[in-house]
């Protein structure tokens, strides 16, 4: 029996539910020699901002138990250069790309969104309102329902493409923020961005990261991310892209069963670049073992209060 792995994120149909996470996977070309890229449903691109940014001072990375801290600081060439030099190349790629937008003020997001979304090479837009690595400015959006509402509403107004809002786990109640993003017009939610953290060098007697604090990712945060997806899935009806520490098919399935319609793989690509391939194979096996014909049948299965009726409706189409 062949199983159907297609899922939908708004109007975007993906051949497999496994995406690669923003900022972790370049354009995909960096990794294509190591795996069958058909196991990557879409590459979520690194976040781009209005102005070019050099990013943070080094060190930008610290390895931690079953995870890592990063504080890249949104290094990117700015939207103008990006449109002229990078975006055109995406058309030639055999995989879908989803643009990611970051900013420091509400109209940054709207401006960059509008220009990026206008390009046919871009299948959907994710707005990163939860980057923990830009001197607290960036994160405030996803930590404040009022700001979340404003940013999402103004980005929404700029495009009809699927709009994904990326949430932060560094809040008291992520479900509340999720509801606000949904009401403001998000088509989907990315849950979660990295967890704020820090490491100290006991010999140098100072924080290890150039930026002092960073974002924790990798298997260490998986239980935190699974719970966030579980709680958000009970609160909203739009699809969720789960992420945070996914490394095996079992992990990916935890997120799907918790209520995610798709997953992103970030840090685990650095443990083994074949992870997306292995996950797709593992999901196929799991479905076959259970005699299921579509991955959509398992979304939210382990979540009694699962609110999302979206995936099933989409199924009829």
């Amino acid at each position, binding site marked *: 029996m062949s199983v159907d792995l297609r899922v939908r994120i708004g109007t975007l149909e993906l051949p497999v539910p496994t995406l690669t996470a923003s900022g972790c996977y370049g354009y995909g070309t960096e990794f*294509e020699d190591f795996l069958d890229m058909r196991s990557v449903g879409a590459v979520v691109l690194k976040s781009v901002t209005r102005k070019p*940014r050099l990013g943070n001072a080094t060190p930008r*990375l610290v*390895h931690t*138990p079953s995870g890592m801290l990063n504080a890249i600081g949104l290094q990117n060439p*700015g939207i103008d250069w990006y449109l002229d030099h990078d975006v055109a190349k995406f058309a030639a790629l055999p995989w879908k790309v989803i643009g990611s937008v970051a900013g420091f003020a509400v109209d940054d997001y709207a401006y960059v969104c509008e220009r990026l979304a206008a390009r046919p090479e871009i299948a959907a837009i994710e707005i990163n309102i939860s980057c923990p690595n830009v001197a607290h400015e960036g994160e405030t959006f996803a930590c404040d329902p009022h700001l979340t509402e404003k940013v999402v509403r103004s980005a929404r107004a700029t495009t009809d493409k699927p709009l994904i809002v990326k949430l932060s786990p560094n809040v008291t109640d992520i479900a509340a923020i999720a509801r606000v993003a949904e009401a403001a017009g998000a088509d989907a939610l990315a849950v979660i961005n990295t967890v704020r953290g820090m490491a100290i060098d006991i010999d140098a007697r100072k924080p290890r990261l150039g930026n002092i604090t960073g974002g924790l990712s990798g298997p260490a945060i998986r239980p935190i991310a699974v719970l966030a997806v579980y709680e958000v899935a009970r609160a909203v009806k739009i699809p969720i892209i789960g992420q945070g520490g996914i490394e095996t098919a079992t992990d990916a399935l935890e997120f799907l069963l918790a209520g995610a319609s798709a997953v992103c793989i970030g840090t685990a690509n650095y*443990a083994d*670049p074949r992870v997306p391939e292995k996950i797709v194979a593992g999901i196929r096996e799991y479905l076959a073992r259970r005699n299921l014909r579509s991955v959509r049948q398992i979304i939210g299965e382990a979540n009694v209060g699962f609110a999302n009726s979206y995936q099933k409706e989409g199924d009829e189409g």
Partner: protein
Amino acid sequence: MTAHAMQRRVHDAHVLDRTELAPDVVLLGVHAPEAARFTKPGQFAMVMLPGGENAAVALGIYEAHGDRVSFMFFVCGKRTHDLARLHIGDRISFYGPLGNGFLLDDVHSGDVAIVAGGVGIASVLLPAQALIARGVTVRLYYGARSAERLVDAQRFADAGCEVHTSTDDGSHGYHGYISDLLASASHTPTLILACGPTPMLRATARVGTERHVPTQLSLEETFACGVGGCWGCVVPLTRTSAQAPSFPPIECDGSDVVNARICAEGPVFWAHELRW
């Protein structure tokens, strides 16, 4: 498809041999014919851990011959500790070879000083061998904490290098930093290649500048992806460098430099082009 598509890939290998060169310094020979064939001097690999759950470890490719490549590593944290538990016959995977290695295409003669500090030695055997094979004279300046940590120096002598050593504690060779030994050498090389801890690289770069010797540095930074995908491993580089990544030619964050990825644009850079 990138230009190196045929050369770089995931290698599923197994351990052929394992030697403890010194306490907590392990040499691991693995069976990986294709990697042995395609590795250029100064390239590295990302060596995956048996248990997953942590990023692969960036390791220089120490030897590459026949069916075998080897890695030499210092046990300094969780991941290298884990790699040190590998035994002969155990499976091990890595992806690579990665990075551009030393820039040696135009070096066919002259007199090269290779400066290695500590674990930096792991990235300079292949360049030494390649240069000697071309008839270039190679002097190795090799510094370590103590005599015990001056591992495998004999191998370089056997390969035809003139070997100069230093130790921080004076237990072998010159007592002091290897860059000081280089600075005090009567002989002026035509090219310097260096690999080791950042302070050593900075000092070596200063010697290069003072003596007007072009100097290539193989840099180290914590890596995550090793292939240019995460922008975690950067170093500030002058925008005019041939190695500068594509970036807007205008001022960015008030700076006229650009952050190049050590793994993708390097790991070897011309010292005079760095703005660190």
